[in-house]
């Protein structure tokens, strides 16, 4: 595994017949240093998902965006349950804000693409050890989200404190299409509008990533950053493999239950193709312990993160009952943590969420550029000495 992840636990307690009481590691800023990897980093394993074909303008559809909207609407309708599963996206948003501190800038107008229930706006107001909340460096935040019910789940006063220097505008717009066209062609945003674009935990449902990435580049002002956290790679690999095995044994074949996800190297290539400069990519694993596999599936549903792969099984809520019955045993056997004492002897199950963090800059004047090939005047060998030789 490439990065050392943080483990926090979500314990489910059967209170009043319903579950849930989350004990989450208190978010503290700048707590963990990340493993930095530049865009050329290659990661072993993984297959190229079909949704990252380059240069195809919306021709390839993997996800049903309409259903995704409905799922999020439905999840947000039960606001109480929905708030209980904020733990994951809040944690991701906190970690993304940590990365914002790394850039020594203030911003006039920032776009939050795929805001969910405004997790980023909340994270921006969390105080960081010894530092002011980052919101003090942003004048205006525009949050867009496909599902208006999720976007407006909480009132303004729940999200941002009354004395906040930051203004928040919420727009219920599909993040897949909102940036594609300029106002002259029916779009919303002019080119070169935003001082930064941030996307936190929503790009994994985008069908046409190349277009969205170039749309983001279009609305960014020159020399402005795009920061993004998205679920990728090995996210939920335990669930994916267990479902495959259960499906093989019970139904004699597999059907897509867990989305194809972009890999680290895919994202590096995509950002480069979309014209971003000074690309930085790093990954983080968040491992959440659940009481059992049903608790995991239920939480995913409450997050509005249920399956919307086109061509999924549509009957019986997607999962056959036989597969569900068998799933628990397989998951525990293959991935359970009772033996290694990870969850203190409790027979819980871990679920991995691999988050890819990306920073890319729109080209601008005065930006650092790589020197021309062959223009170096110092021989690295002289500096590093003979020991620099590998091997």
């Amino acid at each position: 595994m490439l990065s050392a992840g943080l483990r926090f636990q979500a314990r489910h307690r059967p209170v009043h017949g319903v579950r849930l009481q989350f004990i989450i590691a208190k978010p503290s800023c700048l707590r963990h240093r990340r493993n930095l990897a530049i865009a050329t980093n290659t990661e072993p394993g993984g297959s190229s998902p079909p949704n990252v074909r380059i240069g195809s303008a919306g021709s390839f559809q993997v996800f049903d965006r309409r259903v995704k909207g409905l799922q999020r609407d439905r999840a947000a309708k039960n606001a109480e349950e929905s708030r209980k599963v904020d733990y994951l996206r809040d944690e991701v948003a906190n970690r993304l804000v940590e990365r914002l501190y790394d850039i020594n800038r203030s911003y006039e107008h920032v776009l939050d693409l795929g805001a969910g229930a405004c997790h980023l706006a909340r994270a921006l107001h969390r105080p960081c050890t010894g530092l002011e909340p980052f919101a003090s460096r942003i004048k205006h935040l525009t949050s867009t989200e496909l599902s208006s019910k999720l976007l407006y789940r909480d009132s303004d006063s729940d999200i941002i404190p009354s004395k906040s220097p930051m203004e928040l505008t919420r727009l219920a717009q599909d993040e897949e299409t909102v940036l594609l066209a300029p106002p002259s062609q029916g779009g919303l945003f002019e080119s070169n509008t935003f001082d930064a674009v941030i996307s936190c935990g929503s790009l994994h449902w985008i069908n046409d990533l190349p277009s969205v990435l170039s749309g983001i580049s279009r609305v960014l002002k020159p020399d402005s950053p795009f920061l993004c956290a998205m679920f990728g790679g090995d996210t939920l690999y335990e669930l994916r493999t267990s479902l495959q095995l259960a499906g093989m044994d019970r139904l004699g074949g597999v059907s897509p239950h867990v989305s194809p996800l972009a890999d680290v190297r895919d994202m590096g290539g995509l950002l480069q193709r979309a014209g971003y400069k000074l690309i930085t990519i790093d990954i983080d694993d968040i491992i959440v312990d659940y009481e059992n596999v049903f608790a995991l599936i239920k939480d995913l549903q409450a997050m509005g993160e249920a399956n919307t792969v086109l061509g999924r099984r549509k009957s019986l809520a997607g999962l056959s009952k036989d597969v569900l019955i068998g799933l628990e045993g397989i998951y525990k056997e293959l991935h359970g943590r009772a033996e290694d004492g990870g969850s203190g002897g409790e027979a819980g199950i871990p679920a991995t969420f691999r988050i890819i963090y990306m920073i890319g800059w729109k080209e601008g004047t005065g930006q650092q550029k790589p020197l021309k090939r062959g223009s170096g005047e110092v021989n690295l060998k002289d500096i590093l000495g003979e020991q620099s030789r590998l091997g």
Partner: protein
Amino acid sequence: MPGSKIRPVDRLAQAVAKCGTESTAYGKCIAKDFNNVYKDKCLAEFQVLQSCVLKHMGKK
């Protein structure tokens, strides 16, 4: 109101939780040789598990 009624999937979850031994036996059977899983490979174990689950669902 959600919450006043137990969802069918929750009943299923509770029933599966009560069949720990059978569930583990089925999981062990699949995991034993997980590169070579075919339809009904662990049918016997599954049937034991299924009847246990059905029994506990019926009681509710």
